[in-house]
């Protein structure tokens, strides 16, 4: 904002300098109540001056400068960290407290302000983007976002570089499939938080049959009780897969066909709405019978909110995604954020997290550790809990079968993204 105001001031000065209005006559007119006229004269200049700067990392804007320079010397620990994560993505106890985060605070003295501010990648990006574009801090030190958005934000120069000297646990304990990923070579900007698969969640008691394929979402019998995602990529890519097209190879004509496939049912009221992470409550409290869903959410729902719900990867395939911890430009407490990232790569801390949330963990051998824990619990006589833990142990690593049916997102150029969005918007807005 400040930037644009100075642009306006400059435009006014330019208009005056060009002699369109002399300073004196400008002031005199203003004094006579002719300010409006003076303003109107320079209005085109003002309007034209409010351009928005390009955001590619090639440009030397204030925002990108800080992330492209060699890692800035790390400030010392500040004693706090502002963390934005997704709902249902952390272990939580009966009192609504976060036991593992509290352990971190106890060990380091760093206070963590944990928020579930991310409901949808695009939406959250839209909220922090204006600050990042202007080179202002976002107020967050650590954010968790999906792989394709990490790729885009690196391209725009919005993310700080990580100092891997401060992340020894990552080097020691990260599962090799999460190092050097396609969206962030050498983990320069991000470390995996958890990963999972986008597939279908459903409640067999309400659908009254088992679900196996994507086209079940379009079954008129479920009209008005079907959830779709407001995340364009998830919804469109699952649809593309249902038509036998790999998302990474999709052309615009394919995307148009996928849009057309959804448009008819959308117009007929097949879909209740297009959801972010808020689909979770809708599925748990039976407003939705069947919906696009994220694997780990459904595991949690089975354990804590609604035991009936099931997750399935459609026979045509699901999307494999990795959510990542990353530090936005000009974060106020980067050292603390590094310590917190490092903390989660200690198996002792990753274990309780995974036992609770049931997503794929990027930390080595978590599944074995959970099984061992389950044995201990069973030995102490609590067989029910042990069985629950074994269910989770089976879900925290993807099986080969699951990964064979899961695909990566396509890296979209600006133009492609715009075209995909346009097509998707005709589906979501009627």
């Amino acid at each position, binding site marked *: 904002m400040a930037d*644009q*105001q100075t642009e*306006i001031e400059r435009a006014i000065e330019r208009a005056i300098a060009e002699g369109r209005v002399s300073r004196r006559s400008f002031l005199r007119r203003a004094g006579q109540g002719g300010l409006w006229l003076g303003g109107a004269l320079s*209005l085109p200049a*003002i*309007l*034209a*001056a*409010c*351009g*928005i*700067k*390009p*955001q*590619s990392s090639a*440009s030397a804007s204030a925002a990108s400068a800080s992330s492209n320079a060699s890692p800035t010397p790390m400030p010392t620990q500040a004693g706090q960290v502002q963390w934005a994560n997704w709902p249902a993505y952390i272990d939580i106890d009966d009192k609504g407290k976060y036991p593992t985060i509290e352990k971190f605070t106890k060990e380091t003295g760093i206070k963590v302000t944990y928020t579930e501010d991310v409901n*949808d990648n*695009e*939406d959250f*990006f*839209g*909220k922090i*983007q204006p600050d990042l*574009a202007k080179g202002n801090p976002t107020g967050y030190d650590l954010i968790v976002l999906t792989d394709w958005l990490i790729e885009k934000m690196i*391209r*725009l120069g919005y993310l700080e570089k990580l100092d891997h000297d401060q992340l020894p646990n990552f080097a020691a304990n990260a599962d090799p499939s999460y190092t050097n990923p396609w969206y962030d070579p050498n983990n320069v900007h991000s470390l995996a938080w958890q990963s999972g698969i986008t597939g279908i969640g459903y409640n067999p008691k309400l659908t009254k049959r088992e679900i196996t394929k994507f086209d079940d979402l379009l079954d008129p019998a479920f009209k*008005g*009780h079907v959830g779709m995602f*407001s995340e*364009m990529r998830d919804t469109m890519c699952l649809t593309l897969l249902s038509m036998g097209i790999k998302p990474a190879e999709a052309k615009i004509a394919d995307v148009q066909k996928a849009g057309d496939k959804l448009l008819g049912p*959308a117009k007929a*009221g097949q*879909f*209740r*709405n*297009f959801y972010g992470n808020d689909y979770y409550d809708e599925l748990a*409290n*039976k*407003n939705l019978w069947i919906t696009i869903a994220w694997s780990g959410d459904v595991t949690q729902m089975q354990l804590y909110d609604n035991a009936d719900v099931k997750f399935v990867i459609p026979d045509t395939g699901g999307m494999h995604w990795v959510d990542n911890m990353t530090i936005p430009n000009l974060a106020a407490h980067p050292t603390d954020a590094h310590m917190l990232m490092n903390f989660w790569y200690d198996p002792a801390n990753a274990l309780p997290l995974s036992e609770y949330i049931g997503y794929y963990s990027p930390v080595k051998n978590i599944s074995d550790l959970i099984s061992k824990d389950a044995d201990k619990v069973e030995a102490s006589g609590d067989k029910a809990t042990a069985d629950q833990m074994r269910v989770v142990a089976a879900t925290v690593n993807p099986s080969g079968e699951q990964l064979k049916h899961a695909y990566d997102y396509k890296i979209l150029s*600006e*133009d492609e993204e*715009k075209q995909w*969005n346009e097509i998707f*918007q005709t589906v*979501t*807005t*009627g």
Partner: protein
Amino acid sequence: MLRRFRWVVPYLFLIPGGLWLLAFFVVPMVIMASVSLQTGSLGTGYQMTWNFGVYPAAINQFSTQFLRSFEYGFIVTILTLLIGYPMAYTIAFRGGRAKNILLLLVILPFFTSFIIRTLAWKLILADEGFVLGTLKSWHLLPEGFGLIATPISVISGLVYNFLPFMVLPLYVAIEKVDHRLVEAATDLYASRMQAFLRVTLPLSMPGVFAGSLLTFIPAVGDYVNALILGSRSTRMIGNVIQDLFLNFNDFPRAAALGFVLMAAILLMVALYARLIGAEELTSG
């Protein structure tokens, strides 16, 4: 000497308000006007190209949502008026000593956030929630019946949220009506109905005017109710603008839609003022 400059005084009083308007209305408007005429993208940046074509294109593309927003706004204004007038009338004329408590009850919902109140409706009206779920278990409603994600839930949410904005101005206007005028009318053989139609109602018209503006304008631009209680087929123009701004980073089209919305509302308000004779109302 002092007397010579007395004409300045009212203008001095206008300065704080004027500055506020300049900083928080005029400047943002100029920026928005500028953004709406630019083309580009996040990566390449936005440049001023005087692309006026964005206006007709945006109006064409989203005419359904525009019309729907005005339709909902209109329905909401009528409903709040029908619900609010008897309420305000009763509080003003029959409230007695309970007046203040009743008024407090009207504004009590404001002590919770707008979003929380709307989310509460989502729970109350859920398909298997305690209202519909109970009615369904008594077989008073068919199994698949639902209210959320229909125009009914969106309009109900809007009516609920904006009712106080209708009731308060109505109350102020009705409260000011001199009761002796009503008595005079009945003394002159007017029935109570006639007295209401010929005396109370015309005198309370400023309240009707203010109340309907305070309801109609925010209701047309609202996106929260349609977002939380609605679905694809109830999307309003506010939802489209939010989508374009936050999800698609399409700032020019979003800014253009914002302008068109404002212009359309101004036009409607001007027509309404002409229709109801606002100048006579405010001077009276």
